[in-house]
């Protein structure tokens, strides 16, 4: 039965769903002319969702027979997701208009994708996990192929769809095995089942967990389930890539954390090995494969694989400190990536979007502010103190060291040194190479503003990190309070 107690926790999601459908109707009746207003309305809807979320009481609540849960962790991650989505919508407007793919479905699909992410973050049951994931993924498949007249974009969408379906299959297979061996899909029931001295999860549950993990690892693009990432990043329209790089990653990693720490917290010894493995593999691949890239979007794809590897270090630690590190890392990751993609979106020459790294040559002379912003993001991604990226890494590595995972931390530091090579190469190209032609100054004020804000955040994070660190700390605490 539905009661008001069920409705309150899902109020933000409910609003977002209704707003998305209303916006869909508005768009259908007004046609593609309305894309601009649709986009702004979508941003408004995301903001209102956030406002509703902040107005609701702050304690942990579950609804719909425990299928849905809201707690500090969910709120923290939802904030990041909503922020990422809203920024992605703003960043897309100018681009879509210029590329003549301005269609009102775009903001609507982003809204639905964000809705899916919110459901993922709040999932407290294997079924709601899957449903949220599919809601998000399906919308993402479509917007990856949004520029349907470009073969690259269609190819990106199709590849993402096929591989995504495969990963969903694995995830479902794993979920059904867990259900078969445990007899329940609810997270709290699963957690209860594995606690206690006589609890024996059995090899079946563990293998199910492996499949489940494989499905989730695909969504965060961790090695070896990452292969789609570079192709999709390169093929998809740039604002879509920016969106992919940020919001879905945050939602998926939140889901991964909740699934691992919540129901399977007692199986830590089992899944820790997998996480350590995919974390190391992701860090290595992210650092190595990016070196030879010539396309900036592809490079950023590998960079995001590497970043996910670093974030997973926090999960591998499995401690409250580690989860806090992930929260901090993802917040910083959001700022750095949004800023970087704003720069990429500004790379337009004679009306054509430039994507080569060489196109950045001599940027410092033609566009000093943009070059400075880009340099900040690159230094930050390389983890050079005192920029934000350094602190993100610091928190997860510290957690790993405190849990005795020295090898993991050392590999992390080594790979970030290798990774620094290609980030700094971009800086070198911008500042020391012979300038190419100047870019058009058509990116729009919104892009410039986002770039500036993200740059300031990255630069000044160390001055007052406490809101984010404390927010992440509370988020992490709630996951460990019950278990």
């Amino acid at each position: 039965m539905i009661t008001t107690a069920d409705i309150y926790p899902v109020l933000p999601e409910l609003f977002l769903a209704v707003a998305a459908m209303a916006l869909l109707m508005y768009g259908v009746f007004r046609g593609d002319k309305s894309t601009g207003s649709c986009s702004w309305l979508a941003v408004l809807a995301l903001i209102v969702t956030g406002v509703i979320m902040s107005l609701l009481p702050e304690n942990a609540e579950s609804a719909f027979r425990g299928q849905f849960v809201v707690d500090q962790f969910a709120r923290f991650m939802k904030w990041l997701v909503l922020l990422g989505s809203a920024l992605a919508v703003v960043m897309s407007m100018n681009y879509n208009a210029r590329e003549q793919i301005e269609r009102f479905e775009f903001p609507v699909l982003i809204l639905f994708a964000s809705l899916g992410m919110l459901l993922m973050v709040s999932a407290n049951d294997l079924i709601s996990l899957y449903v949220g994931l599919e809601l998000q993924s399906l919308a993402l498949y479509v917007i990856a192929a949004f520029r349907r007249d470009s073969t690259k974009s269609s190819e990106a969408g199709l590849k993402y769809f096929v591989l995504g379906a495969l990963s969903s299959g694995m995830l479902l297979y794993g979920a059904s095995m867990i259900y078969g061996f445990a007899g329940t899909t609810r997270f709290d029931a699963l957690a209860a089942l594995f606690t206690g001295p006589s609890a024996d999860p059995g090899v079946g549950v563990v293998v199910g967990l492996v499949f489940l993990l494989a499905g989730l690892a695909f969504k965060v693009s961790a090695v070896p389930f990452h292969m789609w990432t570079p192709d999709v990043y390169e093929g998809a329209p740039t604002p879509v890539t920016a969106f992919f790089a940020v919001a879905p990653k945050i939602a998926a990693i939140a889901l991964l954390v909740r699934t691992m720490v919540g129901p399977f917290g007692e199986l830590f010894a089992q899944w820790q090995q997998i996480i350590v493995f995919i974390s190391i593999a992701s860090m290595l691949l992210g650092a190595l494969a990016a070196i030879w890239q010539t396309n900036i979007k592809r490079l950023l794809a590998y960079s995001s694989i590497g970043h996910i590897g670093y974030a997973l270090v926090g999960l591998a630690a499995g401690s409250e400190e580690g989860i806090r590190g992930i929260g901090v890392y993802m917040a910083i990751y959001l700022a750095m990536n949004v800023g970087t993609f704003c720069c990429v979106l500004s790379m337009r020459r004679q009306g054509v979007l430039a994507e080569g790294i060489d196109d950045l040559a001599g940027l410092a002379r033609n566009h000093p502010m943009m070059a400075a912003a880009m340099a900040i993001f690159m230094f930050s991604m390389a983890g050079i103190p005192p920029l934000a990226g350094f602190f993100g890494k610091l928190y997860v590595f510290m957690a790993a060291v405190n849990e005795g995972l020295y090898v993991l931390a050392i590999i992390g530091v080594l790979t970030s040194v290798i990774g620094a090579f290609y980030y700094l190469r971009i800086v070198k190209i911008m500042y020391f190479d012979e300038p190419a032609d100047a870019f058009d100054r058509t990116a729009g004020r919104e892009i410039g503003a986002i770039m500036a804000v993200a740059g300031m955040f990255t630069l000044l994070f160390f001055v007052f990190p406490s809101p984010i660190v404390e927010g992440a700390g509370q988020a992490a605490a709630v996951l460990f309070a019950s278990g």
Partner: protein
Amino acid sequence: MILQAISFYAFAAVTVAAAVMVISARNPVHSVLFLILAFFNAAGLFVLMGAEFIAMILVIVYVGAVAVLFLFVVMMLDINFVELRQGFLQYLPIGALVGLVLLAELVLILGSWAIAPDTASRAAAPTPAITETTNTHAIGQVLYTDYIYLFQAAGLILLIAMIGAIVLTLRSREGVKRQRISDQVGRTREESVEVRHVEPGSGV
């Protein structure tokens, strides 16, 4: 009981065999037909478990709609499937190896299949005895109450699928003739018929 066991193995064996044929048949039309066969047998397995509602849904939706749609698509598109399958043999050995390893492992796990004795009691919505109610009724009872959240979310997924299909395929072409019913109905005699007096012997 014996009858049930025999039916189970028959259905299961045919399902697996049909599935193998789906991927190995040379003619894509045959593949789709084997797929339909696999669906039917899967439906049979569901019936054996007492899940007649799902069995019927499988037949109606998958066989009746999905597979037939496949068939249309396969027949309408001119795709050289032989060419697509060229890589198949090249990767067969390693593919088979991975497949076999995975299969062996799964068999090993299923060999240790042990449902905890109280698993059934943990189920969120225990299946009522078939004598009490039909499972259509039972599903209906929980689907819109306990699982309303998942149901609605699934509805949204379908909505997105629809939007996606439209976004990726609908094109507004110039010069397409459309029926405009209101215009048709609103036509008057004066606009459509003109009476002319024609001189006999001369053309119009």
